[in-house]
């Protein structure tokens, strides 16, 4: 069972209080973009075996969205950070590197 901390209200709770909302840090493509870009944005998933960055919502709490870094093999949560962040903060990257040296997720490492 996952234990997550909401960076918006500071509450730490188990997974039934939250809802996962798909991959984080998506680059969005809308009207006017190429079919390839739009298709990739909508459907191509990282679905990694290991380090993953996701959007979560504190459903049964403050209701706010945030980002979390998590491991899909060990279910370890490396940390959570505000949804307004464009890339994972350095302290979370360091925490991941300590556990999984050489990790890579899209352009982040």
């Amino acid at each position, binding site marked *: *069972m*996952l234990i997550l901390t909401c960076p918006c209200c500071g509450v730490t709770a188990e*997974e*039934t209080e939250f*809802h*996962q909302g798909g991959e984080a840090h998506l680059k969005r493509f809308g009207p006017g973009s190429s*079919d390839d870009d739009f*298709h*990739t944005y*909508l*459907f*191509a*998933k*990282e*679905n*990694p*075996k290991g380090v*993953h960055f*996701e959007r979560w919502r504190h459903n049964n709490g403050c209701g706010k969205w945030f980002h979390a870094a*998590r491991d*899909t*093999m*060990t*279910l370890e949560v490396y940390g959570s950070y505000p949804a307004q962040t464009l890339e994972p903060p350095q302290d979370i990257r360091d925490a991941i590197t300590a556990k999984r040296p050489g990790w890579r997720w899209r352009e982040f490492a």
Partner: protein
Amino acid sequence: MKRYSVFAVAREALRDHMGWERAWASPEPKKRYDVIIIGAGGHGLATAYYLGKNFGITNVAVLEKGWLGGGNTGRNTTIIRSNYLQDPSAAIYEKSRSLYETLSQDINYNIMYSPRGVIMLAQTEHEVRGYKRTAQANALQGVTTEFITPQRVKEIVPIINLDGPRYPVLGGLWQARAGTARHDAVAWGYARACSAMGMDIIQKCEVTGIRRDGDKVTGVTTNRGDIDCDKLGIVVAGHSGHLADMAGFRLPIESVALQALVSEPIKPCMDCIVMANTVHGYMSQSDKGEMVIGGGTDGYNNYTQRGSFHHIEETVRALVETFPMVARLKMLRQWGGIVDVTGDRSPILSKTPVEGIFINAGWGTGGFKAIPGSGWGFAELMAKGHSPLCDEFGLDRFYQGRFIDESVAAGVAH
């Protein structure tokens, strides 16, 4: 291969059962094959079997990182049905169900197919309308189903509670020729038949890389050396994204854990399968007497083959309301498998951006029922480049926005 028969049993009984041979060989990998299938689960082995049987392609290797049938083939709730809404789904699932009917004879291995019927309970007005629509669609597709009254549900399943306080049973979609089979036997039977045709089934052989020459596949790298091939089939369920990453493309698939549990064995009390999609629980009774209970998927990607604990509580809570007697049962064991879920809850049987690589994936929470049909169609796709059963399930459907949307009709539980 020595045939299994009543005479073989009698013969072996007279000599202390010393004459049984191994069901399949365990050879060392060769340097090159015409076709390599990654994944010796039901779908991979069925693909290999129909490549040999229908197309005469027998220079085939099936590579398996663990043991044969040790993934989702051995982790499901063994339900076989074909009461889907969309035409392409009904076609492949009904093909599969009909192949299951004679599979024991076809591969000379008793898979214990039991056409005991499935009821999908309608517990809201929306479900009543939805299942009536599915019954009409099935009539047009040639799949025999009917919408039945609550009284008929009670006749078929005496242990059910029709008037639960929150979700009373308002009817049900009944497919009499749906059923169950022995899941391990499906993998073992196909493996034995493949081995008899001269194919190599290589266990404990993990693919660590996919080699290509430009846009064409040339072979795979494994922990037992490099193996060359002309065509490569990726049939690895939950790890599809992982293998696609090796081949250099991404898939519209997310992997999550789906879990199931069984109770202690009890005397026969329910001779069909009941699925309650609104409250999200489904149950059947195995030949051993255990109540086999399907649970929910996790709400987030993972590869843990375990499943979140709270889903057990939710599933059991739903079942206790529908079947009050379940409250008195002890649960024996619980397990999980990694399922590969697509956005429209329909599978992907397709060519890929790499020439020579084919992918059979995305069966999500309901792959077991599809094993023979999936193998039949995917073998045709790999041998001929297209297949009437598979053509609608291509990767290009996402690009074109041409979904085969089963997420409303069937995606909750399989």
